[in-house]
């Protein structure tokens, strides 16, 4: 594994996920989220828990990069975006379950689904663009 490229890809993925999350879930969906205000922490309380949001995004970016580097060691935006979308589908499954158990609206569910697909697809493409190993070993299938 090329750790330097891995690190750069991870930082870029984190940057994108964080900014996209802020714009999509925090700004664009703010009004939709406010349709069920009882579900969310008050602004001040959210500020006190903000470090958890950062930590979650760091872990998300790190393991998405790890998954891409293990799964698509040769890199490339297309295959990594494909993997990102498959990972997003895992999240989409969880979104459906959340909709059944939490009083979120259909608009929130749709927003989360579209957001997940865009976020992981683009993050995968970014990782794949940066993480292109030069070694001939890179084309080998992992775990085989």
């Amino acid at each position, binding site marked *: 594994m090329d750790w330097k490229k891995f690190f750069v890809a991870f930082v870029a993925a984190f940057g994108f996920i964080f900014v996209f999350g802020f714009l999509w879930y925090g700004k664009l969906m703010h009004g939709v989220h406010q349709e069920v205000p009882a579900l969310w922490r008050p602004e001040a309380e959210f500020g006190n828990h903000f470090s*958890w949001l950062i930590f*979650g*995004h760091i872990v*998300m970016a790190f393991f998405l990069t790890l998954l891409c580097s293990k799964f698509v060691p040769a890199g490339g935006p297309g295959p990594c975006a494909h993997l990102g979308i498959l990972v997003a589908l*895992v999240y989409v499954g969880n979104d459906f379950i959340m909709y059944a158990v939490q*009083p979120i609206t259909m608009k929130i569910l749709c927003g989360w689904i579209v957001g997940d697909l865009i976020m992981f697809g683009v993050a995968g493409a970014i990782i794949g663009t940066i993480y292109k190993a030069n070694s001939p070993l890179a084309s080998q299938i992992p*775990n085989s």
Partner: protein
Amino acid sequence: MKRFVLAFIAAFIFIFLWGWFYNGTLLKDVFAEAQSLFRPREEMMGLFHWIIIGQAGLALSFVMIYASGFAGGGIAAGVRLGIMLEILAVSARCAFYATQPFPAKLLVLISIGGFIEMIVTGVIVGAIYKSAAARTS
């Protein structure tokens, strides 16, 4: 393709039963502590098909990822994939914890159950796919 379908069905059945046993029965009282964040039971039952669709989607995407690049590694690769996907799910829970007033205890217990669920799903999918690889080689 036959093994793909078999792996998907087996994974889905396990995820469904585990979800019912762990989240629906074992953690029932812990969920009740945060009742205001959840739908009333009758309302939840009316939306039960969404849980089925979600769990089926989860099982399908797991098998798709596994079949696309992990199949050569058998059960061990399935377990590795399960652990990585669950860590990604935990990262999402951290974000939920920041934005929603979930009790930390609930999210920790859900995550423990999630690890068990994804590891066993990896074993199931890996075991079924491994035999497919052995057949073709």
